């Protein structure tokens, strides 16, 4: 019989838990069966995390003199802090509260109520046994380094960096491409207001480039991250630009003189050319060009050096090597953006085989005044103006064969394209859509506008796009075959040009990014936020935030909002000056330690040292991260860990196996 007075609270979570777990029965069972273990109160409640639920606990702490609290609700990753705070405010040390999950680990994964209920009992029993061994603890205080790393220089990253820099704190921005700007810099117009993308983006890019609080690394990547919130160490690889930025004035002569022209697969989306030494576009920030060594004649053949010859300041440096820089930063914002779905994966849409089938990004460049055609909308031959254009929605989105999710921006983007085509060419425009999704401010109005412009809307997922003429009038055209689902008939629509509104996909290297920063991503590869509604820019890893499309497909306003939100979180933390950390630490009992030194090289954080004069080992709590590996390895049992002590884990084990339950009203699940 435990001397503790334990309160047990079973959450219904609406019907999320109560639907598959008989919460009333679990509460009754805990109150009766676990009485011997010290349970003096056992309740069930609709929403334990609500203020009323929390007050319930606080009231019991005061009135019933609870010394321990067990809440059975959702995953500790969601609400552990909530209930610890509730206990703290109720006058109980927060670490004497234990949250066990009967939702993610029970009700949501089972459908049989009897099974769910029995499992929930075992889980509650485990929590009760464990909480008896919990010790009152105080959180550790760690100072926060005010420097923030922003990874990715698209609109989300730019917004975040400027918000932080303007608040007076230093930012390090890392961009993989030679210039910041991201996908937005490729666009001509932005929906629904049709602002010129460059007009609104370029000033911000310039601000980032010249801001005294921003240190910008473009053509660079983060290669290593270690440490923890407030105290990360990051390594940045600056790829060799082959241009000395101290000397370069960005005059552009090198680009003019470079004889090697290559297709630009990144900024021009494969629709235009650049030189082997290049800035992606004239307004690039920073203004310094880079030499693409894979295509540079000098690097390939050892001769040429035209750029070097003509550079007025002697800034070309073929001998430059990749450089590595290491910085201490307090927090990190990841805004790495998205990649376009490869439309060649849908052979029946003909992209790659039919010349006049374009992707959305290709069309952005085609319609961009600074693009390869100077904004003239023409067919792949570079001359012919299309008389009819089909815009296909949901290409690679909302399709189990490719990506099951909705890419969120395609409807509005397709409407924007329809408008631009109508405006510039007067062509007939056909939008093939599945559902028209225009939920944000001004979006539905834009749809109305495009409707009134005379764009044809055909509801149906396009079956195939072919150049095989079947009927007269189809020769030489691209034919869209579709069921017009609103009339229930097959249609063949011959057009001159097709634009595929291709899906937004996670960056191809999402796995490496997630691994590098120690955060999680969904099956598809979108980075996962801490809470889908209440904490959309934080991650499960303290001190690391996400913004923009790295988290999921979204449009410019939403990306900017997330960038700003992440910045606000970062600044808020910096202003706290220090953060409270879980006091999960190992310590060595000096009397028990025999100095065997087994533990000495088990700690990757070098928190364990050997004290020669006393012949014992010692843990430095400032370096210890609380993994517990040394605790589990000490042959003498001399190392103990807080929060997850041997006794607590063994007790939880007994609890889960119902070893201490004498009443036999339990049938194992």
């Amino acid at each position: 019989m435990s001397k503790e007075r334990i309160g047990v609270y079973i959450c219904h979570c609406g019907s999320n838990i109560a639907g598959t777990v008989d919460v009333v029965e679990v509460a009754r069972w805990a109150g009766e069966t676990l009485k011997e273990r010290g349970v003096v109160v056992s309740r069930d409640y609709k929403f334990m995390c609500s203020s009323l639920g929390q007050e319930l606990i606080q009231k019991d702490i005061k009135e019933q003199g609870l010394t321990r609290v067990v809440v059975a609700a959702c995953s500790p990753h969601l609400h552990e802090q909530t209930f610890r705070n509730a206990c703290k405010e109720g006058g109980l040390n927060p670490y004497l509260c234990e949250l066990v999950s009967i939702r993610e680990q029970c009700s949501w994964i089972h459908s049989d109520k009897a099974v769910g209920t029995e499992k929930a009992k075992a889980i509650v029993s485990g929590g009760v046994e464990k909480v008896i061994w919990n010790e009152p603890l105080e959180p550790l205080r760690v100072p926060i380094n005010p420097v923030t790393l922003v990874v990715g220089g698209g609109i989300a990253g730019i917004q975040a960096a400027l918000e932080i820099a303007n608040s007076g704190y230093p930012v390090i921005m890392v961009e993989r491409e030679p210039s910041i700007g991201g996908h937005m810099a490729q666009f001509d117009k932005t929906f629904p207001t049709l602002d010129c993308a460059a007009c609104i983006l370029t000033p911000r890019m310039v601000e980032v480039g010249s801001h005294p609080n921003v240190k910008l690394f473009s053509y660079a990547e983060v290669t290593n991250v270690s440490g923890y919130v407030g105290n990360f160490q990051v390594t940045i690889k600056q790829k060799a630009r082959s241009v000395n930025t101290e000397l370069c004035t960005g005059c552009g002569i090198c680009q003019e003189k470079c004889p090697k022209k290559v297709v630009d697969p990144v900024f021009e989306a494969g629709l235009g050319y650049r030189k082997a030494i290049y800035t992606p576009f004239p307004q690039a920030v920073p203004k310094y060009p880079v030499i693409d060594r894979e295509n540079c004649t000098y690097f390939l053949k050892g001769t040429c050096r035209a750029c070097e010859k003509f550079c007025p300041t002697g800034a070309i440096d073929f001998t430059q090597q990749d450089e590595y820089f290491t910085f201490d930063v307090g927090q990190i914002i990841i805004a790495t953006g998205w990649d376009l779905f490869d439309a060649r994966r849908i052979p029946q849409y003909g992209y790659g085989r039919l010349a006049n089938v374009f992707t959305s990004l290709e069309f952005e460049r085609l319609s961009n005044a600074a693009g390869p055609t100077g904004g003239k909308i023409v067919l792949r031959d570079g001359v012919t103006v299309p008389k009819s254009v089909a815009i296909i929605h949901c290409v690679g989105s909302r399709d189990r064969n490719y990506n099951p999710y909705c890419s969120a921006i395609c409807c509005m983007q397709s409407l924007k394209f329809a408008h631009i085509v109508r405006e510039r060419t007067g062509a007939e425009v056909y939008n093939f859509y599945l559902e028209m999704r225009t939920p944000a401010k001004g979006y539905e109005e834009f749809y109305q506008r495009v409707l009134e412009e005379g764009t044809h809307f055909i509801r149906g997922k396009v079956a195939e796009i072919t150049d095989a003429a079947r009927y007269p009038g189809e020769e030489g055209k691209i034919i869209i075959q579709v069921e017009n689902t609103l009339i229930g008939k097959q249609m063949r629509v011959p057009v001159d040009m097709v634009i595929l509104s291709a899906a937004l996909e996670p960056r191809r290297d999402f796995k490496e990014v997630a691994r590098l920063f120690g955060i999680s991503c969904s099956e598809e590869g979108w980075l996962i936020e801490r809470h889908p509604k209440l904490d959309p820019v934080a991650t499960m890893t303290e001190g690391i935030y996400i913004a923009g499309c790295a988290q999921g497909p979204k449009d410019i306003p939403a990306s900017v909002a997330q960038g700003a939100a992440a910045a606000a979180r970062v600044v808020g933390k910096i202003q706290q000056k220090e953060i409270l950390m879980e006091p999960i630490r190992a310590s060595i009992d000096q009397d028990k330690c025999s100095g065997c030194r087994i533990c000495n090289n088990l700690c990757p954080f070098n928190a364990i040292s050997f004290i020669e004069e006393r012949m014992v080992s010692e843990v430095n709590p400032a370096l210890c991260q609380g993994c517990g590996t040394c605790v589990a390895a000490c042959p003498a049992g001399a190392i103990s860990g807080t929060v997850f002590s041997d006794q607590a884990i063994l007790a939880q084990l007994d609890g889960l196996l119902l070893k201490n339950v004498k009443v036999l009203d339990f049938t194992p699940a």
Partner: protein
Amino acid sequence: MKYSYFPGCSLERNALAYHISAMAIAEPLGLEFIEVEDWNCCGATEYVSVNLLASYALVARNLAQAAKETRTRQLVAPCSACYLNLKKCDIYMQESPSLEEKINIALAAGGLSYKSGTLKVRHLLDVIVNDVGYEAIAQKVTNPLKGLRVAPYYGCMIVRPKLGKNGSFDNPEYPTSLDKLLKVLGATVIDFPLKTHCCGGHMTQISESTGFELIRRLVKGASDYKADLIVTLCPMCQLNLDAFQGAMNAHFNTEYHMPVLYFTQMIGLAFGMDPVSLGIGTELVDARPALSKIGVEVPQPEVVVKRPPKEALPMPSMPEEK
């Protein structure tokens, strides 16, 4: 390489040319085909429209018969419909233990049994391009089909649907294995946009106008692309495009002349074999003009009308005989 061989009803008679050409090229390709003992019809697309379990049992009898052959675990079918039915039955049995159990109860009534997954069902094209390989084929080419414009035509059931974990051996929308094979044989291969479109299947029997329209699209497509002939790998496709081409022309008042040959015949020609030994000449749309482009002379076939033997069963009379 040894394979069990399931010819299917079509190859017995209407697609005999497919069968004999496949047999003719087997030896130079190093393939040995062992015909499944006393095989039965796979049910085409008809049996499953009437009776679900019996249609699987019908196919499973063939699998059981083929599994008796211990020298190989590979079952090859030249007919796309047979191939799909055999493969689908095996995979559905693997995926559903209850189906497997029921089928085996039925098979037991006929003294047979089959454990799903025992055989690997393959299409003849798959075997030739993947087991023999393009390089080995290229080495045997003596008379490249130079100058011949061919439309590679796959039809439906060789690449669709995607079954089981591995799916089909080639892309369901845009397969390329036959294209590559024909290139290896030296032909000029057109990028035929209709290569996986439907030949109409049994539609000529259900709705003539629908069936003819499907035939028209393909023949027109190949003709628009200036193909000399269509190369196919399925007896149903060949039958529809070849035998019904005349009726289709009559229906639409068109004058297409698009010969349809089997890929096995093309391989044989490239290997320098005698066209007659490959069954060339039995097609209804005369392929001789096309083949003359590559210098292949096909003798005028003898017109043989076999009379039914004495043991023949009574025939339903044809109206014109009345």
